[in-house]
């Protein structure tokens, strides 16, 4: 029993990385932007968080305020990840660059930038993360007293709950608000949206910037909460980033489904730790999420249900003159 609860709660914890990453990418893709830079954006989010943490811990000396210790790295992560989204939008919307190439460039650039920041900060960052990661990891002190129930529902840090809340809010925005309707129209048929007086450029910029910022929190969470150290965190962040992109397809562009999908992906990712297997089998098991995604992709393509297809104009830049 306790092994199962431990497994599930670990899966839920890890799922937050996927959930932030895929939710951000979903918001971006709904506007018609295929941002394959999500892994890079997540690395930049993590690196931004480390920069914020190092600066704050150094400035605060011994007296670290738990609230600020979480807020400042989070704001740094949001800001730098958003910058990557702005760069992507500038290249694809304003300079009309190919979306696929730009996205892959953002990934390469983001991972490299993250590694550079790591090297530049040196051991100061390790100290800072070690000192403040405990504030990321717990929110409800009473969780220990509730046994398995507490472990399963109340044992996580603030970012886990934030991700789930945000996923629900995003779903509601997509389906129930005017902004959501307009955003979906921009991603489906920008010419129609344009004719209806909706600014395609504004929607694509804003959605991509917000989406990237949200993805960046995934990287922040992974370093500060899940691992609690730099170590090999950036390489893993990139790998998890690609899984987040796959998760967007797996959840059929629905953030609310993303909550369950990310837990499944998290469970599959950590499953080898709970089985007595060698390294080779371990890597094989961690491939399962990709396989599952391919199966989902094939099934939805075969069923041809229009609601489950990607936004129709995703990956295509829009220029009014070429109508």
């Amino acid at each position, binding site marked *: 029993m306790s092994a199962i609860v431990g497994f599930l709660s670990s899966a839920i914890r890890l799922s937050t990385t996927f959930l932030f990453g895929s939710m951000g990418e979903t918001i971006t893709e709904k506007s018609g932007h295929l941002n394959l830079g999500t892994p890079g954006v997540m690395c930049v989010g993590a690196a931004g968080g480390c920069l914020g943490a190092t600066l704050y811990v150094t400035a605060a000396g011994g007296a670290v305020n738990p609230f600020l210790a979480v807020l400042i790295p989070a704001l740094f992560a949001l800001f730098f990840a958003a910058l990557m989204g702005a760069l992507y939008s500038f290249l694809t919307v304003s300079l009309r660059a190919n979306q696929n190439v730009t996205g892959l460039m953002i990934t390469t650039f983001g991972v490299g930038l993250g590694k550079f920041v790591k090297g530049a900060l040196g051991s100061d960052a390790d100290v800072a993360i070690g000192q403040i990661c405990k504030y990321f990891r717990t929110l409800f002190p009473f969780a220990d007293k509730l046994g398995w129930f507490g472990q399963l529902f109340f044992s996580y840090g603030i970012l886990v709950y934030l991700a789930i809340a945000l996923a629900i809010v995003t779903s509601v925005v997509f389906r129930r608000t005017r902004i959501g*309707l*307009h955003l979906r129209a921009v991603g489906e048929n920008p010419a129609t949206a344009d004719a209806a007086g909706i600014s395609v450029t504004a929607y694509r910029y804003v959605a991509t910037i917000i989406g990237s910022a949200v993805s960046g929190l995934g990287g922040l969470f992974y370093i500060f909460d899940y691992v609690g150290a730099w170590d090999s965190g950036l390489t893993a962040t990139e790998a998890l980033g690609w899984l987040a992109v796959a998760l967007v397809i797996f959840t059929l562009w629905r953030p609310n489904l993303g909550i369950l999908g990310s837990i499944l992906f998290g469970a599959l990712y950590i499953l080898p730790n709970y089985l007595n297997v060698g390294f080779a089998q371990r890597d094989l098991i961690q491939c399962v999420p990709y396989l599952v995604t391919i199966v989902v992709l094939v099934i939805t393509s075969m069923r041809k249900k229009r609601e489950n297809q990607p936004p129709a104009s995703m990956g295509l830049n829009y220029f009014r003159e070429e109508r």
Partner: protein
Amino acid sequence: MDKTVALELKNVTKTFGRVVANKDVNLTLNRGEILAILGENGSGKTTLMNMIAGIYYPDEGAIFVDGEEAVIRSPKDAYDYKIGMVHQHFKLVDVFTAGENIALGLRDGKKFRMKEINARVTEIAEKYGFHVDVKKKIYEMSVSEKQTVEIVKVLYRGAEILILDEPTAVLTPQETDKLFAVLRRMRDDGKSILIITHKLHEVLALSDRVSVLRKGEYAGTVNTAETNESELTEMMVGKKIALNINRSTPQNVCDRLAVEHVNCVNREGVKVLDDVSFTARAGEILGVAGIAGSGQRELLEAIAGLQKLSGGAITYFDPQNGERVNLCDKTPTQIRDLGVRLSFVPEDRLGMGLVGNMDIVDNMMLRSYRKGKWGMLDRKNPKGLADDIIRKLEVVTPGVHTPVRRLSGGNVQKVLVGREIALTPTVLMAAYPVRGLDINSSYTIYNLLNKQKESGVAVIFVGEDLDVLLELCDRILVIGGGTVTGIVDGRTATKEEVGLLMTKFRRTEETQETAGEENHDS
């Protein structure tokens, strides 16, 4: 019915580069009336309507709404003047419901509640006798339902002046009748309706007055009750203009290609070719006249092996041995392997004819890529051919290695026609080969076609300019709504005769029946 003027156009002119789309057009639209705008293809109807709807801005002249000068620079401005347009190509998001599409871009300051929007949509629809299922997704709808959504969308935004661009082009006769009933109800409610069409019988059935455009110019307005088909046709096509295209007497004429009772159904399940029969003869130019989209494209594609037939036969008579070759249900490669030398200059030059990003030599190779040895391409001969075409047809290009898309329209066409003629065809099909070309390039193309005819090729020429058709072609096949409405002699036929045949639709019991069957099926 009160006779207040809702909309007035004074001396409106619009040019695109050197092409004059509208010249000094005057128009008045009264409140509570249906005004039909009649004109051939390219007579500037849509351009004129787009200016009223805010898509284009006139170069000269003024537009007055309710007696006051209106500046309409965007569709949003048009809505502020209570003008709404239903375009030929619907602007709808496929995965949205009807209600969501109508709500799109709406800024009425109210809180966003789909329920209220849907209720209001249903209310408007019921008022005019429409049927709209607000929760139905667009991709599940028929063309007629989509059109209804577009019309309601315009009404929802409070339009008093409605512009409809060829609304009946995509409708069955029954759906057309329904639409007309709705339009009459809207007129009786005091709305003003501008309807673009080139179907004469519809104009006569629906409109109060008719304004005619001819080659971008205003040709006059008549009361529908006081006119008839032949008067309208004459206004539409105008007097014949002499073009002085050389036309030699056909020599050694013999049958080359026989099309018999051909039927064709397109992807949407609409019958685009209905019992088409004709013969193309060697040493003759057969013109094909008709309103755009009457089945010309499908006809040529059927002969070229690109369109599946649902009935009928296409037979080729081999000039060497007089053998009959069946071309039905064959791919283009199979047709060529049968020894049929068929050349095709499609309407969509850079889509079907040439690859825009490839240079002239590579485009030549699209026809000869199988000729190399050992799996390697032969580039020498195509290069020679490209040089030849550039020299003989005076193609203006920096070199043979310039991407075709960088050439001007006329030069692109010369490259395409040159390549097709180089195959020494026995049948040459050309769809709108002079569209977008200046006078000189056009005459170059006419001469090329004439030379082919004189060398014994069966030429099929699909055109839109009646003057050209009447001077270039030996016989003219007139096609209307997918059926052959007549085959006339190019030397003796008059413009009015062809014009009337073009707009004559055999909307008799026969087509009514097939439409009815389709409804049962769905």
